[in-house]
């Protein structure tokens, strides 16, 4: 198993390295002079040159990449092009924490809900319950979050004032009540997108396991249905949902961009949209790189958990 995980980790490192090249190349090598875009058309050649020198944009691209990567690993993520030209790192890390809170809240709601729905739909295959779950997931999966988000805001926050839910969310303070109050709507919005995806995969996974011969073996041992389902079927059927959850986490980080905008929540996604509009390169690079890193980490964690629970890999 150690070999397996070492291999996965190494592979992930390679992937991260290539991803960093892609990110750098996309933001830097494409046409358009950043300095001119930031400083505007009337800027003098002198000002442009100063700007390029200040941010190291005058160096050859490979050199810039190496500088950026080394700096990134050392915790120096560059400075913002605009405003006070503040260092990027504290800004992004602060926003990252906010986004993580929202992502966590979402996972806590959506994973149990959608896995539960998927299991129920599979066990009640071809009944109205199954039909209802699949219709629900067909209806909400793929609906842009700004549509579902606006429905929730206008329906629950503005529509039912008694609930006392805010239409725009702020970072929750330490209390559980505030977590729920501030984050429930954005988390629900994200859940609506995830639930279709996860429940559908869970249902397919459970159905696939149910058709395997070992289930018949268990039934013909005379085990109660409860044992057959919980001990034998779900033990195997839920293994893939670990990976799915990790993938959802990655999706969540991307998906939160829109949700944070809908709820005016000060997360990393909102910062990214701002940065993109200002072409604030170092901020963009930092956010994308950090996201990719956490996505990769989630995948590695999923691999570890998967390996621990799957004897075929654990005993490799």
């Amino acid at each position, binding site marked *: 198993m150690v070999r397996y995980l070492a*291999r996965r980790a190494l592979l992930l490192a390679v992937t991260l390295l290539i991803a960093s090249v892609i990110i750098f190349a996309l933001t830097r090598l494409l046409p358009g002079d950043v300095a001119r875009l930031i400083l505007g058309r009337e800027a003098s050649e002198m000002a442009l040159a100063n700007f390029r020198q200040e941010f190291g944009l005058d160096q050859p691209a490979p050199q810039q990449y190496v500088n950026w990567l080394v700096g990134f690993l050392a915790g120096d993520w560059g400075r913002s092009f605009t405003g006070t030209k503040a260092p990027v790192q504290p800004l992004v890390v602060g926003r990252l924490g906010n986004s993580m809170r929202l992502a966590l809240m979402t996972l806590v709601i959506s994973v149990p809900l959608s896995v539960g729905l998927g299991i129920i739909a599979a066990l009640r295959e071809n009944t109205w319950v199954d039909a209802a779950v699949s219709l629900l997931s067909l209806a909400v999966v793929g609906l842009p979050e700004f549509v579902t988000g606006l429905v929730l805001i206008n329906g629950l926050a503005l529509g039912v004032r008694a609930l006392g839910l805010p239409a725009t969310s702020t970072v929750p303070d330490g209390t559980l009540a505030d977590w729920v109050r501030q984050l429930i709507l954005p988390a629900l919005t994200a859940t609506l997108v995830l639930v279709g995806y996860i429940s559908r995969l869970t249902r397919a996974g459970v159905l696939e396991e149910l058709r395997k011969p*070992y289930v018949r*073996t268990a039934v013909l*041992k005379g085990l109660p249905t409860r044992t057959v389902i919980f001990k034998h079927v779900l033990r195997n059927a839920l293994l893939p949902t670990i990976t799915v959850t990790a993938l959802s986490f990655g999706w969540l980080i991307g998906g939160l961009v829109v949700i944070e905008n809908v709820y005016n929540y000060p997360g990393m996604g909102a910062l990214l949209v701002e940065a993109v509009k200002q072409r604030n390169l170092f901020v963009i690079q930092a956010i994308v790189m950090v996201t990719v890193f956490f996505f990769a980490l989630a995948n590695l964690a999923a691999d570890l958990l998967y390996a621990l629970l799957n004897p075929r890999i654990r005993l490799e």
Partner: protein
Amino acid sequence: MPNPVIEARGVSMDYRLEKGWLNAVRDVSLSINPLGIHGLVGESGSGKSTLALALMGYLAPNARLSGGAVWLEGEDLFRKSQAELRALWGSQLSLVPQDSLAALNPAYTIGDQIAEVTRQHFGLSRRAAWQQAVEMLARVRIADPTSVARQYPHQLSGGMQQRVTIAMALSARPRLLVLDEPTTALDVTTEAVILDLFRELIQETQAAALYVSHNLGVIAQICDQVTVLYAGEVMASAPVRELYARPVHPYTIGLLASIPRPTTGVETRLPTIPGVAPALGDRPPGCVFAPRCPAALPHCFTDKPPLEMIAPGHQVRCHRWHEIVNGDVAILTQPEAAAPHVAHQLAAESVLSARGLRKTYGGAGWWRRLTRGSARRVRAVDDVTVRVRPQSTLGLVGESGSGKTTLARCIVGLETADDGQLELLAIPLDRRLARRSRAQLRELQMVFQNPNDTLNPYRTVGQTLERALERLSPQPLPPDQRRQRVLELLEVVRLTPDYADRYPAELSGGEKQRVAVARAFAADPALVVADEPTSALDVSVQAVVLNLLKDLRAQKGASYLFISHDLSAVAYLADWIAVMYLGQIVEEGTAEQVYQRPSHPYTEALISSIPVPDPAQAGGRIRLTGDAPRAADIPTGCRFHTRCPRKLGPVCETDAPPWQEAGGGHRIRCHIPAAELLALQVSAPKSD
């Protein structure tokens, strides 16, 4: 007469379709006495597995019992509640399933899964149940039961997995044991050992057993009573010796005759049953076998014959059984002689020669290890030299993992051998497919194993054959001539012209294989490599394809490299035989030499493990202990020494054995002198 343990009376079963129900099993009655081993034999789709599970009171979620009843010692199983059935399952009624790896839960240890049975039924504590599980593993002759109990299913070999399922099935002392094709996935040497084990254990437990199989050889070796199922109906039921010695039903007669036997020889063709079994949906109204029956009379097509008792314990469903028994009607015409086949047995020249062929997988480079994790080097083919003589057939036999398929693929070029020389018709043949000339491609064609993916499902049979003609013909053919050739090819493989416009989905497995043979012969190749071409087919269909290959060899003057795990099929077709074990050839010689005087201890064991379709012949004498080592860790010295019943001593473990000539081209790779090995064969009591 003792009271039967299990008795089915008039059982009919249906499967649910999108609209309504489809009858799968019709009016089946059978009973099994204590200690009886009842064989249920039938081809695929005959309903045998469905029926077997029904005898346990188990219905698949999409199945129902539409008539009849099943009694377990006088109690009607289908009147019981689910809870009552659960109390019987695993304790009174147990199943030994077909695919043992799939039938075990991959997430739990062997011990845990066996212990589950006694914990459920006897209320044993976790510790006591575990202890009992270990004892059960010892009872199925597992050498190290304590450590095996702690292992997971995927860590065990196929034979060991099957032992585990037996241990599980027997752990609560069942009254009825249902064995559903339990050895089908196993190699013949392992199968022989497992069959011995079944026999002993069923005796020990005093259970009744239902043994389901498509393999008439296995049934003959283990059962005392046999029921023959065809298209969901019982055709015949008889004591095993009687059924094999004096089959009465035309289907039974045809089936038994169509099995190739080592002694069939090269001079004859196999008798065959024409046509294919009907799909469940369109079974004929009269006798279900009538459309394929050589003795069918007009009323056979309209009136369903009753199941009649013709002797104690012997029932037959045929209108004409009187005439058949009295010899007034012959079902089998004398097997016709095959077209004269003159193999140039000792000819010096060869169609194909391969020298020192090697192919190793895995262990290639750090990058592959990083991304794929396959660090083990597997020497699939290791220094193999073979030659196929003009107009003859080289049969290549060996267990799974012996490298026979890899060898064939290296020869045709689907895999590129790492090393070695190839020659086709005395011209060097590049190891890489892309470097071979068009003429060489034409001369070397292949027939594949799986009939279901051998033809492109999106093309008609005609289009497939036309493309082969277009690519392989020496001169370009104008379209009308191509069409003409397609029809000729279809005729050669005994298919009517209307097949040209059919899609593969409309063909049966045997028909698909015949089209595949036609495709291989599109441009009169010199050598056709056939990799297990009949192993996915039913016995009665297999005979048709084997005959076809035999006829084409004579008509077209082609040679074959014929690969099969089924030694009887190889014996039917091959003039020369090479036996492979763990990537190397251990014995080669003419078919007669290898079968009549198998000299290498492995060949000897292999041949004596064949389940002979004749209950009067005791099973072979030699059993191999242990499993074949994995191809990734090949033993030192002689590769067979870990299982060899004639191991000499340390020399076998350290030195690779030399090739020894046994005369007439017969060669053996063994440390024991060839003369000594041959003498052992002559003195041993011959089984046939």
